[in-house]
């Protein structure tokens, strides 16, 4: 199956996305922001539909919308999920509504809607591949450089706010990393299933890992196993990749709940 360029592309893109989602996912779960990640992906859905409507690349539309909204979330100081759940639900409704409207207006066929919602890794264009590679490498680079502050903020916010003088900036950078990760991950799993790469592998890893670095390593492994396995299964069966990733990651997660 590796003789086909579309499979090679799928594996390259899938691998990068699995690594970046596992890595950022650990911080997302540690800060209990999975819900926010999900809403960002719904906003990304609106962005992708808007891009289709305008005739742009869906990835860029998605990225634009998630980045703008994550920056405004940072400004509004809504990073704390508990205070803002209702606001976030309202935003999510607006996003999905807009997404549906733009899809209808763009008069594209149902398959473009499906690929936004459920991912389209096999039909990813060359330009998109380059974008995904640049974005994932950028997220990884910033994530590694800011690893220490990100780790403190995510795992012990109460003391990080007193210990780090620029904690607000770390928060905003984190939201931007999360938004970018959401946008690129949606290329594989679609905007409806963002949980399966950003939340499930990290949540499973956080039951086994006893150090932050172990948690990140395991999350990446779990995400890779899901993506690699799903790509192969999907190739043989013609059932969508997202389905297999969802099944594999959920299985890993449920097996991990036995870990404590």
């Amino acid at each position, binding site marked *: 199956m590796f003789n086909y360029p579309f499979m090679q592309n799928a594996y390259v893109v899938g691998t990068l996305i699995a690594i970046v989602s596992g890595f950022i996912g650990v911080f997302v779960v540690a800060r209990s922001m999975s819900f926010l990640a999900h809403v960002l992906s719904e906003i990304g859905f609106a962005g992708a539909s808007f891009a289709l409507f305008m005739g742009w690349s869906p990835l860029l539309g998605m990225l634009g919308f998630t980045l703008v909204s994550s920056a405004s979330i940072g400004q509004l100081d809504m990073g704390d999920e508990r205070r803002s759940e209702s606001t976030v639900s309202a935003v999510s409704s607006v996003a999905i509504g807009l997404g549906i409207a733009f899809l209808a207006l763009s008069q594209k066929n149902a398959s473009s809607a499906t690929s936004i919602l459920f991912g389209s890794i096999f039909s990813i264009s060359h330009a998109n591949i380059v974008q995904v590679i640049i974005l994932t490498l950028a997220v990884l680079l910033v994530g590694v450089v800011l690893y220490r502050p990100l780790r403190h903020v995510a795992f012990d916010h109460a*003391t990080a706010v007193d210990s780090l003088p620029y904690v607000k900036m770390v928060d905003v950078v984190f939201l931007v990393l999360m938004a970018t990760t959401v946008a690129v991950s949606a290329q594989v799993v679609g905007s409806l299933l963002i949980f399966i790469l950003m939340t499930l592998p990290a949540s499973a890893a956080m039951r086994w890992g006893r150090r932050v670095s172990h*948690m990140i390593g395991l999350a990446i492994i779990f995400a890779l196993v899901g993506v690699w396995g799903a790509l192969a299964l999907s190739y043989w069966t013609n059932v969508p990749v997202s389905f297999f990733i969802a099944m594999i990651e959920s299985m890993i997660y449920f097996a991990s709940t036995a870990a404590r």
Partner: protein
Amino acid sequence: MRILTGKDVGIQFADNKRWLYRHVDFHLDSSQILALVGDNGVGKTTLIRAIMGQRALTEGELVRDHAQDLRIGYVPQYHDDIGAFPLHIADFVGLSYDRGLLPWLRRSEKEHLEHVLNEANLTEIANERIDRASGGEKQRAFLAQAMIQDPDVLILDEATANLDNVAKFALMDVVKHYRDHHDLSVIMVSHDLDIVERYSDNYLLLSPDGAEFGPIADLDTSKLEEGGRDHV
């Protein structure tokens, strides 16, 4: 050596114009332990936030006599968002190495971490999970975490509040050990008069009708009945 001086400090909330207290004077010297006492809601945590530069005073001033960049280590009163993850105590304490670009700990940091854990009597349980640690062990871990950055002033906000008689003295002995072996002053908020009388040098009693500051021997415990001995 004088570390911190509070001159005629007053704090009022902007929204309801209520004064918490006014004309509060106190100072903190190096290697001293200052007990901050007063009834629930009198504004102890609020004063601490001001000392840490997280909120402004309404009147008066806080002078950092020691140095402009006074390093403050803080063990907060509420610390409820941890314990959800099975991190080892050593890794949890090490979260405080949050400066620098290197993702992993340098050799010198590893040695320093071991030293801090040892001082907090955490070496034996360094590889136990923080979410399963007892209340006393958790508090010692929080304390160690605050000590990682080698602060000039350590602030404890009711660190012993939920500890039994053994654990609270174990914790305070660690604080005292740090004070004796490092260049460290301590401000501790406590409702526990046993602890306050045994460990502190000075006290600052806050109340809405004025504050009192002096050596601990002068503390009139009857003024603290409401939040005092029966609190434990």
